[in-house]
């Protein structure tokens, strides 16, 4: 058997793949956080809850209406995005003039409420969501066995990340968003409806989280706690990357996912905390984060 650093190649590649998949979710989620933070200056603690909502939306749509995975991939983000926009319009928007900490505390409360409700309704244990038949099974790549769905997740999340990046960097809407990040008053004076832009941004951010949730549903179990388990790690990712740049969030997400996967190969006991350790080291050496501009 081929060995690499004293580890069987298959185990190595298997963990690398798992790392890549976790990294895809970290990237998608930290991207959404960065988009929201960029414009609203709010750290969306409810991001994990919205990710969970996406997975639940997919599962419930399948259970009650027989709506397939493919439609869920479109509709779940829209539903959660609308819900996010509603929250932003009615409540979150009242906090913009205050210390940003209040936004964090508000969304923390929102996350607790959503999570508590789903735990009350569906219990804490996870529920399975079947892999869509078109993506079931796997292929043998010769050096390792690749479940097709996992490959699909890596590809799709990469496409979604790049798509969001293009939306923000290359389109007219994106240019409004970036301008409003720099100077909202001036942008409003040019006739752009900034409050609507803010609502839209929060909706898109929440939708992205839900999209990640649908993607995650067949891999992890659909459970009310899936969001809070991942969101703290994503916070660490965001601290490492710095929220200054969208691309930074994406790259850091993948990097840390892979770092976590590799730690599982070489020193499994530390795999839970490796991202936090990396965060601490980055803070000591480069407090602004790897891609951060603000101190």
């Amino acid at each position, binding site marked *: 058997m081929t060995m690499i650093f004293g580890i069987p190649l298959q185990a190595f590649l298997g963990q690398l793949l798992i790392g890549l998949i976790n990294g895809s979710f970290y990237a998608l989620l930290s991207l959404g956080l960065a988009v929201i933070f960029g414009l609203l200056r709010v*750290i969306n603690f409810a991001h994990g809850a919205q990710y969970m909502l996406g997975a639940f939306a997919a599962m419930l749509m399948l259970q009650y209406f027989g709506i397939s995975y493919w439609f869920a991939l479109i509709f779940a983000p829209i539903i959660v995005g609308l819900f996010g926009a509603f929250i932003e319009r009615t*409540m979150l928007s*009242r*906090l913009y003039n*205050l210390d*940003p*900490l*209040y936004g*964090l*505390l*508000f969304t*923390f*409360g*929102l*996350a*607790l*409420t*959503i*999570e*508590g*409700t789903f*735990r*009350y309704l569906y219990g804490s244990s996870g529920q399975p969501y079947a892999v869509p038949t078109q993506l079931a099974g796997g292929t043998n790549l010769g050096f390792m066995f690749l479940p097709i769905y996992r490959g699909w997740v890596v590809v799709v999340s990469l496409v979604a990340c790049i798509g969001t990046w293009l939306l923000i960097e290359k389109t007219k809407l994106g240019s409004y968003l970036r301008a409003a990040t720099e100077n909202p008053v001036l942008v409003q004076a040019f006739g752009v409806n900034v409050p609507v832009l803010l609502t839209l941004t929060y909706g898109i951010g929440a939708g992205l989280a839900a999209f990640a949730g649908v993607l995650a549903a067949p891999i992890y179990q659909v459970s009310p706690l899936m969001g*809070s388990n991942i969101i*703290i*790690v994503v*916070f*660490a990712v*965001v*601290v490492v990357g710095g929220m200054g740049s969208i691309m930074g969030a994406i790259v850091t997400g993948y990097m840390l996912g892979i770092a976590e996967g590799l730690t599982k190969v070489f020193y499994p*006991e530390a795999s*839970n*905390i490796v991202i*936090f*350790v990396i*965060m*601490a080291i980055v*803070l*000591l050496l480069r*407090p602004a984060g790897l891609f951060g501009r603000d101190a």
Partner: protein
Amino acid sequence: MSDMTHTAAKPRAERSATASMTYAIFLTAGLILLVLAPLFFYPIFLMKLLCFALFACAFNLLLGYTGLLSFGHATFFGGAAYFTAHVVKEWGFPPELGVLTGVVGAALLGLVMGYVAIRRQGIYFAMITLALSQMFFFFCLQAEFTKGEDGIQSVPRGHLFGFIDLSQSTNMYYFVLAVFLIGMVVIWRFINSPFGMILKSIRENEARATSLGYSVARYKLGAFVMSAALAGLAGGVKALVFQFATLTDVAWQMSGEVILMTLLGGIGTLIGPIFGAGLVVTLQNYLATSDFPVTIITGVVFMVCVLLFRRGIIGEFYASRLGRKLGFEHRR
């Protein structure tokens, strides 16, 4: 700034005289209540309340008086609970030394976490403390001495100073009360010391404090360690009260809970967190028997507080007409 507007209405000396009079009356009434309370209430409940009240006040030292929102205070509370439980149970330490070990351990954890976290401000600070405390949670989950999911159980309460039997709940109650009062006096002295004044100036305007020549980072770290040590005091005592230390106390939900207590009672008021803790603990006790999850209520209260009620109960009272008449002023 609110100081200025209120002072104009009444001469300052007269106001503060009324205020100290009111304070004295409330303080005496509060002390009498606390001493007599075990006659009317279940002692364990009261002790839990006092522990959480001290925990929330320690947390408020950081949020209310230094302006730093830590999302990782469960580490100090729960960490100290583990340390105290371990040394009392496994090494046979007497309770006073056990609690002291918890305090020192929490202070050291605070030194490490604070050293890393003060490199960033505001929401980054909150996220970093949250991440580091999650790291400590995983450490506790895997470490040998914490006994994993079981936690450290049946911790003996022992004899205080060798002759006061703490297994009697009345003795235990007055021990907890004494610790609580000592903790409160320390906090009160701390925020009214020159050190505390500098912390407030950092909260109000960090750049100006720097320009006046204060080493802001060092003061922040000092406040962080102080707050961690006091949170550890509360955690260590809690381990003796309940005779166990578990993962619940180091989980992020606990950090959220203490934020809620402080927010609900009044950020930046000395006694607000006590009321906040009282409300939250009472609510939890009340809901413990029903199957309705506490998280939903906690979350909703959080949202309502942030949206409508940012001064908290005591803050609103101070700012109300009655509160002002009694001579209180609301800062912040």
